[in-house]
């Protein structure tokens, strides 16, 4: 187990190195000039040049990247060009809000997706099944800003059940989590349905029924633990998809997370923040996958971590 974890963490470090290199290179090749953004339209060429030198942006790519990497190893993500504060502080201040949103979204995904898939599989071929699958299709295909605005309009503006935006209480969390989770719920319900249908055909389900177990015990005791395995592996990948969604959802609901931070940074070519947010997201994806792999053996004893 410890050997496994060590190996996976070394792999994770290599992945992060790759991500940092590619992102850094892409940002370097970007035609937009961050220095112009900082200096403003009216700045003289001399000012622009001095700012460029001050930030080290006049150096060749290899030198810039090497400096960034050495700082990164010592935990320094650099300073924001615009906001004049440490990137790590900005991220740490906003990360909890985003993590909270993600947890909420995962709960929505699992609760909605798994129960939809389970019901559809059990009632396979019925009108219920078809209705659920149409629903999941809509969930998968609707753009998140549309879903977000729609939920906002119906449940916040018209019905007034939830606040329109902001951050703080549980009821603030409901609509953003739902918006972010609905896409995943659509995927999960489809996966769960096909996985469950497959499991329900297995011989051991027939054995369980032959023992005289009640339908509920067969479904939840025997079928579910088997059917959920492929879904668990998905959750790790899902965290990556959240990162894209978070940018949209946080702007729609005014949620003070790293999605908003990233969005503002992209608009102003604030390279240190973009780098920082990208690396933090990559970390989340890598850790999410690792977590999914670690959980799997607890559900399926046949899986051994080595």
């Amino acid at each position, binding site marked *: 187990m410890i050997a496994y974890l060590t190996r996976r963490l070394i792999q994770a470090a290599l992945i992060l190195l790759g991500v940092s290199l590619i992102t850094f290179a892409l940002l370097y090749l970007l035609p937009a000039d961050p220095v112009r953004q900082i200096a403003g339209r009216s700045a003289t060429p001399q000012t622009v040049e001095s700012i460029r030198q001050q930030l080290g942006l006049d150096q060749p790519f290899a030198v810039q990247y090497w400096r960034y990497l050495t700082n990164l190893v010592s935990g320094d993500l650099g300073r924001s060009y615009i906001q004049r504060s440490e990137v790590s502080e900005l991220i740490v201040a906003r990360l909890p809000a985003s993590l909270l949103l993600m947890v909420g979204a995962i709960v929505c995904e699992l609760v909605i997706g798994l129960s939809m898939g389970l019901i559809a599989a059990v009632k396979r071929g019925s009108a219920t099944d078809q209705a659920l699958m149409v629903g999941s299709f809509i969930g998968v295909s609707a753009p998140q800003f549309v879903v977000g605005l729609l939920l906002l309009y119906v449940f916040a503006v018209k019905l007034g059940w939830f606040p329109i935006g902001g951050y703080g209480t549980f009821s603030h969390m409901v609509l953003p989590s739902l918006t972010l989770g609905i896409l995943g719920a659509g995927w999960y319900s489809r996966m769960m349905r096909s996985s469950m249908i497959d499991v329900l055909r297995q011989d*051991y389900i027939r054995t369980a029924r032959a*023992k005289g177990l009640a339908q509920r*015990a067969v479904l939840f*005791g025997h079928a579910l633990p088997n059917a959920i395995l492929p879904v668990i592996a998905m959750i790790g990948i899902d965290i990556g998809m959240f990162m894209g969604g978070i940018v949209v959802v946080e702007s729609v609901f005014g949620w003070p997370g790293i999605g908003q931070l990233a969005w503002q940074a992209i608009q102003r070519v604030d390279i240190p923040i973009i780098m920082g947010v990208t690396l933090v997201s990559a970390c989340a994806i890598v850790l999410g996958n690792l977590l999914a792999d670690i959980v799997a053996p607890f559900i399926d*004893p046949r899986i051994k971590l080595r």
Partner: protein
Amino acid sequence: MNAATHPKQAAGAPAPAADRPVLDVAGLTISVRGEDGERPVVSDLSFSLARGETLCIAGESGSGKSMTSLAIMALLPQPQARISAGSIRLGDTDLTSLDERRMRRIRGNRIAMIFQEPMTSLNPVLSIGRQLVEAIEAHTGVSSAESRRLAIEALTAVRIPEAESRLKQYPHELSGGMRQRVMIAMALALKPDVLIADEPTTALDVTVQGEVLELLRDLQRQHGTSVILITHDMGVVAEMADRVIIMRYGRMVEQGKVADIFERPQVDYTRDLLAAVPRMGTGGARQVPTDKAEPSQPTDVAVARDLHVRFDLTGGFFGRVNRRVHAVEGISFSIAANETLSLVGESGCGKSTTAKALAGLVPYHGELEIGGRNLKGLGREARKAVRRDVQMIFQDPYASLDPRMRVGDLVAEPLVIHDIGTPGERTERVAALFERVGLSVDQMERYPHEFSGGQRQRICIARALALRPKLIIADESVSALDVSVQARVLQLLKELQAEFGVAYLFISHDMAVVENISDRVAVMYLGQIVEMGTRDQIFSNPRHPYTRRLIEAVPVPDPQRRRARFARMEREIPSPVRKLGDAPRKLVLADVGGGHLVAESPVS
């Protein structure tokens, strides 16, 4: 209705009197809804089962025997299949009229069932203990400590050693035979009136089969359970049955006492069925080719010398190799033209791996020669040319044909791969092959799903013959077929050999089939050959204890020769997975006369 006002009664009714049947099936008709409307798969079936009796329902695939058992359990596949007429009475209760809730109290409690596939019939993610305890708790209100005690008792009853520690194990940690015993323990834990065993030993090795059958017989005697045993194997019928029902196309064609069925079958179908059963000790249908091949110095089509196949298993921090599967350990044999060499042995003995090495599908060490050319050190083109001489026929005719290709194209594919002939010539050759294997030319345009298992295996044979190979490897090629079909396919293989002079490497676990088709036989155990010789040497004069055990374990299709005791194995076959540097000791084969090779020391 009584059962509604006294719900306990259905579950806990007193045992019916001994003279009344425990189970009485009358006019049972089961219909399955398909694309072309509803059609019956079982029609007007009536039988009764007395206390303590073993009733065998025998028949080939599609005879409706499994549907019958599922109907009794009310486990018919929903919503396609349903009981459209008839009754199934357990004591005074008509099971067909029970709702699911009341039927559930009967299932596993008064009627229990064990299935064919022990490898897939237990839930892989739940421990053995949990699955056993659950079966007990579903029907009794006992405490969890008590049900645990009952579970241990049930495991002990099926002769599973160290029962208590097994409760924590998961199915994948047990062998097939052990899993089937767990299934039996689960089924018999609540001492049901009726046990339905649907092909309980078909998926098991023959020595394990003997043990499981004996176990079923002993437990039946102890508890007075009535058993419905569903099987296609007439050997198992002869070994186990009191009475027999022969089914065909969903109808009962004959029923009677086991001795009567075997000695005086009344119906042609039963006679044909019994005639098709391969029997040991009745060989001689095949001439031994040694006398005809001797003068012209037989050329060896395939030679293996000191063949090793090992698979590395990785583990540890850097994923280094730390263990090895010793699948094949230094075996040597040769196959002459026009000769059939059979490899026999139980699952995991390395017989299929040997075949794969010969066909160039797994890396190996040692020497392999095909048609006098050593496979080592050949270039890409030369290897491809040699492969033309070796073709394979696999076990499962359903899985070994691409469902999206026309069967004609499937048979022509080897010709295309090796770039032989023009399209017109290929079509001609394929047509000739179709006729030769007993299919008609106009079937070439059809798809695999339109054919029966036997026909598909003929297509596979045609495909293997397309390149006119020198050697055909038949890996359990007739194991999945019904006996009557099996007999015809074996006959076809023999005819083709006489016609084309092709050599066969025939791999099988079925000793009776092996005796029927082989010229020479090699018995494998844990990757090594323990005995090799002509068919007569092996079957009339087996020298190695393992060979004897294999032969003795085969159930004989003759109720007069029923064994009192089966050969029981002291322990399970050890694993071929070993630590690095811990290679197994190589067995030395000694010639005991006439080329009959026997390993010098017993395996154990």
